[in-house]
């Protein structure tokens, strides 16, 4: 097993991540304005911004889901018990004692088990909750509310706001955890350049060298 710089985050994945980040920040800012938390932006403008950002994000998610399933990248999010306890223990205790992170990125698993489970939950619980409630809200806004009249706008908005709070909590934790490695920059950089240090077996290295030109960093 040797360490190599390889392309962990493909171009689409990085584009997805950063445009999603920008959209989520826009949606959180405009969404909480619509909810009435502050009036830093006029209500009507907040609604317009929120609606357009939501439509763009929906389109982006459509591409992302397609990408995840056609490239097989979805496998990174399958929950695993391997190392799970160790990673959890590290964040609870080990990190204070100066221990090293017990997880090493591999070519098959670019996320640690805690991370993978969190992203999976975001993908299959929080995001569906926010887009199901959000699409229902949009349909009501676009005059197609009859199908949801048995629920009413209130409960739909409530579900949407709760899901939005969950997203906000995720964002806070996500940004904080970037500070837990060597440095904040070390964590952010791979999502910009795409390259990160990954332990490769000899077989993997041989395969990448032979069949995946561009994944191994030049001169590595």
């Amino acid at each position, binding site marked *: 097993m040797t360490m190599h710089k390889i392309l962990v985050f493909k171009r689409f994945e990085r584009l997805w991540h950063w445009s999603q980040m920008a959209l989520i920040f826009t949606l959180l800012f405009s969404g909480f304005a619509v909810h*009435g938390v502050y*009036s830093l932006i006029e*209500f*009507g403008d907040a609604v317009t911004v929120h609606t357009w950002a939501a439509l763009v994000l929906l389109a982006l998610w459509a591409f992302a889901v397609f990408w995840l399933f056609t490239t097989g990248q979805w496998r990174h999010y399958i929950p695993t018990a391997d190392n799970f306890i160790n990673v959890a223990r590290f964040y609870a205790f080990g990190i*204070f004692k100066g221990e090293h992170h017990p997880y090493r990125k591999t070519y098959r698993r670019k996320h640690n088990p805690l991370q993978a489970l969190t992203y999976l939950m975001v993908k299959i619980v929080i995001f569906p909750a926010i887009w199901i409630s959000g699409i229902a809200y949009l349909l009501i806004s676009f005059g197609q509310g009859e199908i949801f009249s048995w629920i009413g706008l209130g409960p739909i908005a409530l579900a949407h706001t709760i899901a939005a709070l969950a997203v906000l909590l995720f964002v806070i934790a996500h940004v904080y955890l970037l500070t837990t490695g060597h440095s904040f920059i070390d964590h952010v950089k791979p999502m910009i350049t795409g390259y990160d240090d990954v332990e490769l077996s000899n077989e993997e290295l041989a395969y990448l060298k032979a069949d995946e030109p561009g994944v191994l960093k030049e001169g590595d």
Partner: protein
Amino acid sequence: MYRFNYIFLSFSILILALGWVTTTLASSDPKIEMGISEYTKTDERHAIIKPKKESKATTDHTKLKELQGPFFSGPEVTKACLECHNTAGHQFMKNKHWTWDYKHPKTGQHLGKSVLINNFCTNARGNEGMCAQCHAGYNMDSPDFDFTNQDNIDCLVCHESTGTYYKTPTSKGNKACSVMFEGKPAIDWAAVAKSVEMPTRNNCGKCHFYGGGGDNVKHGDLSSVLFDPPKDVDVHMSEAGEGFSCVTCHVGEGHEWAGSRYEMLVNDETGTGKPGMPRDVASCESCHSASPHPITSVQGIKLNSHTQTVACETCHIPAIARGGVATEVDWDWRTMGKLKDGEGFKLKEYTQGDGHHRATYKSIKGTFTYAEDLEPMYAWFDGTMNYTTIATKFDPSKGPIDINSFSGSHDDPGSRIYPFKRMHTTQPYDKGNNTLPYMHLWGNDDSALWGNYDFGKAIEAGMKKNGIPYSDEWGFVETYSYWPINHMVAPKDDALSCSSCHSHDGRLDHLEGFYMPGRGKNEMLDLIGLLAVLGTLGGVLGHGALRMIATRRRKV
């Protein structure tokens, strides 16, 4: 003791001096007008007749030999009209402008000017001598008017176009009021007869802009400004806008036309049509449809979905009593009857936007409060009005009595959030029966309130005239009346912004029981949300702090 007397003495001198100063000032105040004349010069503004557009009518009435006269009275002109328009009389005799009578199809209540009590001058019934100047008929001087004689229909009041036509009281008031209608030029009956055309704003406005006893007193959205409104006051009626007359929207056939505030339509499910096309609804949606906003923007689409819950008027009439003419918002009858040198007077201490002085006190009516550019009151409304009639008993201890109340709620798909002008009045009631009484206001006798200033006598006479039991005991009760707002539609750029309502302390803050984004009403959710965010922030900051402390300790 001595000391006290000195203080008392100086105090008395001060009071006397102040009193003298105030009386001197008051007697020289140009805002005091002696007399109790209630004559409103309703022809003052609209007498300016604009050059007429070329008529497309197939009959030129000025050339009809039947209209050349000479005529010596209104009924003679009416006879001439009905010779050719031989169904008009039968049609009009069914109209509210003639019958002053309305049976509500939903509540079954017997309504109309002939029976209702309001919180302005209170009742037309028994005071027809004065009030029937705005009856579209001749010689109505009591409730016993002959409603079957079509010769008494007043065709001219709605159809003449010279602006010189007027009507005077049909019976004598108290001698103090007799000066009111003197010095008017005689009506040239043939000239007004030949001038007939479709009713214009001048015709309708002569009465409807002066409801409640003066310019814009009653409605708030119907004032003399609408004779020739600037575009920002009324985008439909302004010559710079659409130049509509009242009957452009209040269309109809056979002398029955759309629009009623007894049984209103808060939305139009009958269909839409172009202005002037026969239809029997006069709502905004009748022309603009229920999806009037452009669907090329998110806000346009979003606004279109508002029409299911919000009346167009709510956003598009941002304020009432615009354009410089104030509306009355409070009338206090308790102060009625103060005299100067034994004579009634008016105190004109309110100067409205157009510079005219409005009476804040009238000996015959009491004290008034005015408002301009007034924010309407908003409520869910399903279009049905319920009235406190002469027969309705109420509990005077339960706060202000609603002269008219209405139903409507968020959960009723037929209701809309609607703007209203709310009128507050303190007026007499029958204390023994807990009902509103008929008052005898107008008459040349010793019990008419206007001239004798005695509520007891006026109520007794008013009730007796109509054969209604009276307990001989009266008091004052506070009342509200609610006037749905439909006119003075502003240009679209002046419509309310989203945040007028979708904000904390917005215009709809008081409406309960439904979710409205931007109001921040879900305090439980907001508290949980805040705690969750603070908890998470605290968690990561705590975790971070522990890491820093741990790192530092290891280094030491």
